[in-house]
């Protein structure tokens, strides 16, 4: 059986499994549609949360960014796990005690204001759509490789599948499906990593393999990698920073508080059976997430080493030291088809030179070798994870599994986010504010239409993504960090926070963040409309647009506190509500009623 057939088989089988489960547990009522029924054990719920959480950004994109940014990419590793600590300690138990369905519902009631609720819905939709755009990039990469077509065609195919998948399901279907998806996803991620770690270092556990010595040598894997990349003018892998240390600090903080402000994750904690379970669920979710996140650094480093050694086959500078283009391996050709990998023979020697032609220190050396510039003109970071098993020449079934896992990761999160968007529009805007008498059936229909609209919009931006999948997703985290997280946290920890403070805080926070992103990435991400250009020289203290959410959050907190001091404190019944959500006793189950 050839690789293509095997890939179809792996993807086909795993998808029939998800669809079978979704059909078996399909949503019948609005309650089912938004939240999984009660009685899901914290371990199972944690696993589903992990699957929901780990998207194309984690599975497909992150290790690629680690491969090329080394230590600098630690911001993603710490940011996307550390947020769970905040979620578990600052939000989850209290939101569970509150016991409603959606984040805007909490904000609307806590701040006794329809305006606050509408502002929350808008912030939430902006963050979620940006997030889905990031997913679309990943979905496009995975489908273009899977179907062996160019990136855009892959993206259209992916949009269709996401649409069918999310509209059919709803949360209940998704919870059970997600457990299956987690298993496939984590298996697909760790198996190739174990194979490669064994091959390079002889240590099976990738977490230990990364710190082990290379097989048959006393040089450690990371030291070897540092040598290989610096020999070609790239920055040293284990010490290269992303922007500056200040940028890394702010970036990490943004991703952490964004994690604790994103609706599709918070939603799950509204409906666990008990407050106690909300705490445990956050812990289990992080256990399942950590399995992938501690493997990713090994995947990234080993993929980089394998890639460099595939191309630089011999000594740097020797005429025979570089791979001849005619002898390029099959994976190279496959990814050329997608347009995500490009080669250009600048010095017409028929061989591939891959080095850092931006390094001034290396330029004279390159010239003496007769190299006329880096010939790998495009190596999209997002292809690394999917290409990795092929680069390492692993068996075909491992490669097929990897593609199935990548698709699972992209689909679960896209579906969870689309659900959050649908519920914001149908439940919070329509039923909650504009048409309270809407029937359940029409509410569901409105939710589905909203999903379709969101997919079309995300697909449009997926064709011209503002950044790599993980970078785009980081912007979504910035938006959530600067708007939702401060409002939720002050709603619980500051009894005196009132509606004017929270509302103006959210508006100020998200505006500052969005303006900063737009001025560097283009208005609504449309290329060419960025009025300051995507240039690091114009960055505020060298902080990149992707990392700016934490600054927006600080603005949010400051504005909210100042405004609340100048306006009337919240009424007594609201202060009692806050006192009540602080203690677990008397938690009922989640209800739709008011």
């Amino acid at each position, binding site marked *: 059986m050839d690789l293509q057939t095997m890939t179809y088989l792996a993807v086909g089988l795993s998808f029939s499994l998800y669809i079978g489960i979704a059909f078996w547990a399909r949503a019948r009522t609005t309650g089912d549609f938004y939240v999984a029924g009660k009685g899901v054990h914290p371990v199972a719920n944690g696993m589903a949360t992990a699957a929901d959480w780990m998207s194309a950004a984690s599975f497909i994109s992150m290790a690629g960014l680690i491969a090329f940014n080394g230590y600098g990419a630690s911001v993603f*590793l710490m940011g996307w*796990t550390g947020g769970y600590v905040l979620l578990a300690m600052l939000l989850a138990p209290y939101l569970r005690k509150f016991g409603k369905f959606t984040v805007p519902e909490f904000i609307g009631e806590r701040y006794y204001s329809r305006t606050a609720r509408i502002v929350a819905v808008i912030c939430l939709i902006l963050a979620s759509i940006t997030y889905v755009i990031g997913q679309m990039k990943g979905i496009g990469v995975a489908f273009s490789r899977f179907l062996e077509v160019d990136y855009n065609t892959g993206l259209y195919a992916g949009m269709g599948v996401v649409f069918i998948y999310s509209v059919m399901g709803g949360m209940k279907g998704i919870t059970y499906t997600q457990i299956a998806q987690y298993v496939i996803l984590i298996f697909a991620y760790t198996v190739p990593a174990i194979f490669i770690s064994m091959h390079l270092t002889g240590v099976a556990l990738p977490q230990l393999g990364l710190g082990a010595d290379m097989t048959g040598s006393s040089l450690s894997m990371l030291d070897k990698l540092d040598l290989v990349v610096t020999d070609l003018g790239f920055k040293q892998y284990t010490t290269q920073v992303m922007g500056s240390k200040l940028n890394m600090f702010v970036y990490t903080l943004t991703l952490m508080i964004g994690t604790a402000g994103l609706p599709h994750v918070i939603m799950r904690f509204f409906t666990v059976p008990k407050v106690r379970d909300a705490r*445990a669920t956050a812990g289990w979710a*992080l256990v399942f997430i950590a399995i992938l996140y501690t493997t990713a*650094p090994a995947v990234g480093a080993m993929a980089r080493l394998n890639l460099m050694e595939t191309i630089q086959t011999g000594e740097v500078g020797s005429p025979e030291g570089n791979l001849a283009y005619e002898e390029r391996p099959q994976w190279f050709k496959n990814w050329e088809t997608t347009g995500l990998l490009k080669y250009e023979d600048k010095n017409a020697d028929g061989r591939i030179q891959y080095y850092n032609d931006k390094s001034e220190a290396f330029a004279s050396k390159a010239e003496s070798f007769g190299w006329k510039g880096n010939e790998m003109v495009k190596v999209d970071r997002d292809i690394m994870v999917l290409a990795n098993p092929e680069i390492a020449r692993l068996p075909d079934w491992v490669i097929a599994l990897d593609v199935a896992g990548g698709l699972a990761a992209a689909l679960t999160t896209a579906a969870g986010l689309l659900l959050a968007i649908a519920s914001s529009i149908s439940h919070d805007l329509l039923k909650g504010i504009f048409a309270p008498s809407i029937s359940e059936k029409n509410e569901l229909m409105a939710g589905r239409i909203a999903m379709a609209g969101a997919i079309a919009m995300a697909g449009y931006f997926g064709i011209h993504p503002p950044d790599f999948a993980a970078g785009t997703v980081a912007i979504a985290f910035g938006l959530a960090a600067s708007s939702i997280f401060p409002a939720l946290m002050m709603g619980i920890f500051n009894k005196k926070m009132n509606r004017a403070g929270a509302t103006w805080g959210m508006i100020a926070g998200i505006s500052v963040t969005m303006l900063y992103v737009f001025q560097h990435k283009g208005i609504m991400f449309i290329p060419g409309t960025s009025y300051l250009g995507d240039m690091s020289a114009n960055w505020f203290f060298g902080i990149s647009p992707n990392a700016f959410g934490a600054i927006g959050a600080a603005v949010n907190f400051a504005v909210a506190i100042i405004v609340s001091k100048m306006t009337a404190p919240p009424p007594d019944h609201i202060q009692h509500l806050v006192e009540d959500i602080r203690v677990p*006793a008397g938690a009922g189950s989640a209800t739709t009623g008011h």
Partner: protein
Amino acid sequence: MSDREAYWKANIRLVAGCLVVWFIVSFGFGIILVEQLNSISLGGYKLGFWFAQQGSIYTFVFLIFFYAWRMNKLDRKFNVHED
């Protein structure tokens, strides 16, 4: 001071303690002090690099379970637990 206030105070103390550790392992060891720690090696890892890409994540997992365990004890002590 009522029981509920005392419970809330104890809760804040616990959360604050946990967040100090959270900050030290990630922002402290992983970013601010990374160069200093990198001069120490842990197997083939530089220690600062290890905290940034491995150690902080393990600590986060431990922190959440520690917090959940201590909170469950507090819930019982102040008699605000469910059921």
